[in-house]
């Protein structure tokens, strides 16, 4: 089998408490994102793919070449793998000039001094930091250092590109700027690319396929729209800003323990996850007119201003986030402690079988 692209099943135990067991498959010329909270195993994945951490089981194959396969006794050391990595803390060589940082990989792979210098200079120009060539990494701004790290990773013309939280160290303005640069260079890179991030915006904007990873396990894979509209875990729902409720479906109703929701899908049975957009929920001061809707009385527990919108957190029987306008807040006197009625159309409730984990 000589499938092009990256085929990886990574199983590593780092301690009794933490185990990474995740599979990703990335075709050439596409970007996958590994999206997850801190400590979910994202950086462990980078270390395994780069060869800095041997697998305990599973296998890693790039374009048909086996990187790691403990079952077959194969392990290719990192210096033999053609993998470009932008590390989370960049890990630039502080004692070398910027241009020597970029030339390091070329020199290590046998390029002559002059050739390495001219090619490195070219990469620095491409990333807009050509003027920094003779500076030390410590004298660069965050955005400049990030560009140098990207140039260093790309200069060896690797077959696989790994980006570990490439924008997390930057302020908001520099982040948007560099995200654009990153997007351009990702689309110009022919091999598979893996973006590691905890920022859904980054993943949604840059990746073709997103893998949500939690506690060392991939809990959902799909396009940005699939993750955004149909999150399968509470973490993914939080990322998308959706309400997330677990329950058991039966006869067009979902029993969420403290409350039962009527839903449009009558065929689903068994454990399900329910997601509801906060703006799909309506708020009234009196019980709204009868209709086949979900209506219940609750208490406003918290009120937060989010831009021109207001976000309410409601209390029992079913705690939910609700989004209303400023005008509605004033009209209904929505303050903590207020008793209100909420209504929710069955068609606004998205129900899916609980992810098999």
């Amino acid at each position, binding site marked *: 089998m000589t499938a092009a692209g990256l085929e990886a099943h990574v199983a590593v135990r780092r301690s009794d408490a933490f185990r990474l067991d995740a599979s990703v498959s990335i075709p050439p010329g596409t970007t996958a994102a590994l999206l997850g909270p801190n400590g979910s195993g994202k950086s462990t994945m980078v270390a395994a793919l780069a060869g*800095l951490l041997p697998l305990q089981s599973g296998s890693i194959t790039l374009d048909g070449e086996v990187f790691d396969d403990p079952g077959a006794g194969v392990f290719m050391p990192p210096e033999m793998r053609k993998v470009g990595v932008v590390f989370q803390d960049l890990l630039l*060589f502080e004692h070398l000039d910027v241009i020597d940082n970029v030339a390091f990989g070329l020199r290590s792979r046998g390029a002559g001094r002059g050739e390495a210098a001219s090619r490195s200079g070219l990469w620095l120009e491409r990333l807009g930091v050509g003027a920094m060539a003779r500076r030390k990494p410590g004298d660069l701004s965050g955005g400049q250092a990030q560009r140098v790290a990207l140039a260093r990773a790309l200069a060896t013309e690797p077959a696989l590109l790994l980006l570990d939280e490439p924008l997390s160290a930057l302020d908001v303005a520099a982040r948007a700027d560099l995200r654009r640069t990153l997007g351009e260079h990702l689309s110009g890179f022919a091999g598979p690319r893996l973006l590691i991030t905890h920022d859904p915006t980054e993943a949604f904007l840059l990746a073709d396929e997103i893998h949500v990873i939690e506690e060392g396990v991939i809990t959902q894979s799909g396009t940005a729209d699939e993750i955004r509209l149909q999150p399968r875990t509470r973490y993914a729902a939080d990322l998308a800003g959706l309400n997330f409720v677990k329950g058991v479906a039966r006869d067009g109703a979902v029993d969420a323990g403290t409350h039962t929701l009527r839903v449009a899908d009558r065929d689903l049975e068994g454990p399900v996850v329910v997601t509801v957009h906060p703006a799909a929920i309506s708020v009234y001061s009196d019980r709204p007119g009868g209709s086949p809707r979900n209506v219940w009385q609750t208490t406003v527990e918290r009120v937060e201003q989010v831009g021109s919108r207001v976000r309410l957190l409601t209390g029992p029987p079913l705690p939910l986030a609700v989004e209303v306008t400023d005008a509605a807040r004033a009209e209904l006197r929505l303050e903590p402690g207020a008793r209100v009625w909420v209504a929710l159309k069955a068609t606004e409730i998205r129900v899916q079988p609980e992810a098999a984990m």
Partner: protein
Amino acid sequence: MTSSRSPRPPVLLVVLGCLGLVFFAVPFIGLLGRVPWSDLPALLSGPVVGDALRISVIASVAAAAIALVIGVPLAWLLARAEFPGKPIVRGIVILPMVLPPVVSGAALLFALGRRGLVGEPLEEATGLLLPFSLWGVVVAAVFVATPFLVITVEGALRSMDRRREGAAATLGARPWTVLRRVTLPAIAPSVLAGLALTWARAFGEFGATITFAGNLQGRTQSLPLAVFVALESDRDTAIAISLVMVVVSVAVLVALRDRWWGAL
């Protein structure tokens, strides 16, 4: 009331600290007070002082160089390699640092002397006899001083951020290239600090040298040995040599102070 001054230190600490300072300063003041300044050129230009200075400089510099060549690899093995009996190996390497130097000298004599375990075959094979030769002075200094380099460099290797070595490997650098271009530059300040400590220990070495290499003027008599001999017979010369050693040591300390304070 607002005050931007740092808080007043506890009186007891100030008193004890000053006491410590006095304790360290008084011997130097005593030494400087006894220096026969006008006779100094005559005292220092004699053959005894010249020979001892030559031997001390050659032996301490050679010992520091040899310590560098064998000490850095030892430190790397202790910090990075996994092998059985590692605590014992570390104990053996560090032992000369805590052992009385005279005992180190005696041990060297039994091993490398004319009748020694290694000394006898060595002499038969090469004709080289370590005791009572300049090589003996160097060997004694290497033996007692190298541990300072090993523990300094081992500590630096353990505390350095190893992720940069990993980054270098992903860029295609083989282990030797990683060592040369990433690891050694990262620990360079500590290597230099360890080297300074090692040189200083070798420069001041007395016990192991006199036991193993003897006290032959012009062959093995280094400055500390010359001071010891002169104290018995010619106090002014002893003071003059001591002054030379203080000046050389302070000069090295000053020359290295930025790196030194940075790494220790």
